[in-house]
């Protein structure tokens, strides 16, 4: 019997469900199929909310895309705004943006990278990293971080705030603002906006350097465990610049195998489907992309900060490049494959973002110059960027009236779908096998998922209470035990 054929109805097996997963963006659910000896026979990370955006956008005019897609996700609206905007550039036949337009978009994007990475590291991941995965839940949260490490918490808030201010300067608003229009942008940076951001730049850069040092220290503190936790080796995918440099806004697709060899390089993302295929599993709304060259079984891969450290040949800002080299060399290269290496890599990218923002603010093109270009309209547009969480693909087909007839989005979290399942499987096999379930042990699984910073759904926060529920089911599907973490943090065992 194959692993995928196992179900809770299989004699002797019981199912453990963790629902929803906390401190990730959106709602997920983990189920573990466990036999009578508490051996994990199967581990799955489910996505239980269906977004349906691809259907919703059909029939809408293409020029609405940059604004429409901002509402796709409340966590990363800028990423969708830029990727959707690049797809619309292709639809209006613009292949080269005016320098001002590209630099304004880059400024906005690196502001998004900075604020997103700051939020994840300081407020979502740091409780686990500072207090340990097994610390009591009353201690393992951002409030405890604020109480015991107030400077860390404060810097996290102010770094995030700076990134939001960069976005506001580009888009006019911190949220719901618009910069991208078909073929360009709609505004320059004003001298006052530039000067305001410049004034805070040195402090932000210093805090980013401290953040990298902290991430490195937290990883090195228990390097052997961190390298082994949710361990896996996989291919990596990202955009890279023509010269192989890290470029989070534009480039060609590069895939590298775990041994560092290159599978393909500088591929036109406008034909991404020649390399990236998607399969569907009946138990999850999220698709499972794979590299066509390696096939459906072996072709899963990882994207995001960890992947980008290995796919690029260098980071084109000096401080971040020094840190990347140290990261790749650490532990004879162990960190570059480690699930928990994502946190360290994320802080290196945050430093790169701060350096890039500082350099852009010195560029006079931001203050003047052509805002947009024009071209000959086409019927297919593909836009790809490296979003904070990884490669983000927007693909649209339009009819002669300019109405969208088909849309396909592959978001960063979808690329990492199989990797997150592998991480859950690895942790469950190592940490849960043969042991009684506790909240702390179950948190190990969440820690593994959280490292990928998954963004699982749109931001309907009104729906979003985030208790943790664990159910044990026997082979017949009958609940035999139930653990609930209430909204106030207490864990209670409830009668089935």
């Amino acid at each position, binding site marked *: 019997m194959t692993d995928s054929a196992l179900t809770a109805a299989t004699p002797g097996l019981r199912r453990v469900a963790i629902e929803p997963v906390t401190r990730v963006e959106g709602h997920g659910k983990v189920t573990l199929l466990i036999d009578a000896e508490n051996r994990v026979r199967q581990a799955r990370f489910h996505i239980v909310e269906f977004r349906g955006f691809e259907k919703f956008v059909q029939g809408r005019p293409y020029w609405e895309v940059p604004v429409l897609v901002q509402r796709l996700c409340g966590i990363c609206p800028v990423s969708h705004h830029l990727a959707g905007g690049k797809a619309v550039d292709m639809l209006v036949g613009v292949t080269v943006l005016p320098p001002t337009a590209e630099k304004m978009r880059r400024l906005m994007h690196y502001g998004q990278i900075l604020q997103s990475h700051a939020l994840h590291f300081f407020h*979502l991941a740091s409780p686990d990293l500072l207090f340990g995965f097994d610390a009591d839940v009353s201690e393992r949260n951002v409030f405890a971080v604020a109480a015991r490490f107030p400077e860390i918490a404060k810097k996290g808030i102010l770094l995030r705030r700076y990134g939001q201010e960069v976005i506001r300067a580009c888009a006019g608003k911190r949220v719901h603002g618009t910069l991208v229009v078909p073929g360009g942008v709609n505004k320059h940076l004003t001298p006052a906006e530039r000067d305001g951001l410049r004034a805070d730049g040195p402090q932000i850069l210093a805090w980013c350097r401290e953040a990298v040092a902290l991430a490195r220290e937290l990883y090195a503190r228990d390097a052997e465990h961190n390298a082994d936790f949710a361990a896996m080796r996989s291919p990596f995918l990202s955009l890279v610049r023509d010269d192989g440099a890290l470029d989070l806004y534009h480039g060609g697709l590069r895939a590298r195998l775990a041994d560092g060899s290159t599978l393909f390089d500088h591929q036109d993302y406008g034909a991404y489907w020649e390399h990236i295929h998607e399969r569907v599993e009946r138990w999850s709304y999220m698709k499972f992309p794979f590299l066509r060259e390696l096939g459906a079984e072996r072709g899963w891969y990882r994207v995001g900060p960890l992947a980008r450290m290995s796919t690029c040949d260098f980071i084109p800002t000096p401080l971040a490049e020094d840190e990347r080299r140290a990261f790749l060399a650490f532990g004879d290269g162990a960190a570059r494959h480690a699930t928990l290496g994502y946190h360290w890599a994320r802080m290196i990218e945050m430093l790169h973002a701060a350096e890039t923002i500082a350099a852009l603010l010195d560029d006079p093109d931001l203050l003047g110059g052509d805002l947009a270009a024009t071209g000959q309209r086409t019927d297919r547009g593909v836009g790809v960027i490296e979003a904070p969480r990884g490669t983000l693909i927007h693909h649209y087909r339009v009819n002669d009236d300019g109405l969208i007839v088909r849309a396909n989005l592959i978001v960063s979290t979808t690329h990492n779908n199989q990797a997150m399942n592998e991480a859950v499987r690895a942790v469950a096999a190592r940490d849960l096998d043969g042991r009684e379930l506790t909240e702390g042990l179950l948190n190990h699984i969440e820690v593994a998922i959280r490292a990928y910073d998954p963004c699982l759904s749109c*931001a309907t926060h009104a729906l979003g209470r985030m208790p943790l529920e664990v159910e044990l089911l026997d082979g017949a599907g009958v609940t035999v035990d139930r653990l609930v973490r209430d909204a106030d943090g207490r864990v209670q065992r409830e009668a089935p």
Partner: protein
Amino acid sequence: MSIAPVLIVGYGNPGRGDDALGPELVARLEALRALRPAWPRIEFLTDFQLAPEHAVDVRGRALVLFVDACHAGWRPVTLRRARARRDTTFTSHAMSPEALLDACREAFGEPLPEAYVLEIAGTCFDAGAALSSVARDRLDVAVGLADDLLSGYRAAA
């Protein structure tokens, strides 16, 4: 100019039906502002959800009003006092006003503003949906409550 003493934050996803109630109420109050010369100076803010950096927005205010959509409960519109409290809404996805106030106090160590939460019950949160007719009716009630609060604050100042 110093920061406005009053902050009104409406949060929710305008692309998800009645989840837009928070930002919609802010838009309504901004429009009403010109007709209410007695109101104090106000900064209006909208966002998808409350996140830690909003502690910077809250800092130094005298009065903060959070406006949010909620699931249908026993009251269609509720105005309640918010006080700093630690809870498990420490995700950026669903940080509560109480948790945000607590984060603000911990981070900056300063006195907190008087804070209120205006919750408006929605009925439909589907992607791409417009505000439901029920939500529109409740929005009128909520605007009235906010108007009273702001006018009363001016009188007390």
